[in-house]
């Protein structure tokens, strides 16, 4: 079963993203929303959490939450796909299970 993992906490505050990438199976997707979007900053000390797992996981980020936080024009990690809410819905319907990492 394909799983969509949702992460909504900053990697600097919580270990949700770290636990998610540790336990997610190959071919799973990870969507970063709310404070989770801070993980996509290319020059951050936590960027390895995404970079080390891009071979086997697909990463997505919600544009609206980047915009809210003034991150739209910051350098992002290559290969992270940007989505709007419509893309979020498409992602949900294209997976069997949605797992929110609270």
């Amino acid at each position: 079963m394909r799983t969509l993992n949702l992460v909504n906490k900053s990697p600097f505050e919580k270990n949700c993203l770290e636990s998610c990438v540790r336990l997610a199976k190959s071919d799973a997707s990870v969507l970063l929303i709310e404070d989770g979007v801070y993980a996509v900053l290319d020059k951050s000390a936590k960027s390895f959490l995404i970079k080390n797992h891009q071979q086997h996981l697909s990463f997505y980020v919600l544009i609206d939450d980047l915009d809210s936080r003034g991150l739209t024009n910051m350098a992002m990690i290559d290969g992270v796909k940007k989505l709007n809410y419509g893309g979020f819905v498409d992602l949900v319907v294209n997976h069997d299970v949605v797992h929110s990492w609270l």
Partner: protein
Amino acid sequence: MSEENLFNTKGVKKNFMFVCNKAPYGTIYALETLEMIMISAAFEQHAVIAFIDDGVFQIKKGQNTKSSGMKNFSPTFGVIAMEKEDADEDDDIDMIWRIVVEKESLEARGLSSDDLVLKTEILSTAELSDLMAKQEVILTA
């Protein structure tokens, strides 16, 4: 779907995984997750209770909340483990329950299975990852 059928869960059975990933007393999450687990039992669902990260502290032996005045809910996990054994032996109860702990989380905190209030399956990250991928509903809190 008519309104009267909305909450008719008769015959609905799914594989649930409850991922307990937070320490017990700093926030209400751990206690509320335990409530979810009990409710899933009332509806006779299949369930895996998985302890990862600081969640392993929820089942640490010897918790004493007398001086803090909070409810010590760790004995409830012992009761769940006993109920699970009864359910395993009773052919009339169609409920598969597993209680698992991630080995790496336990070791990272200097704990071993002897430090826990109940008997659990100790799984590696890879084994837990496989098990997680087989679930129909995953609730982490």
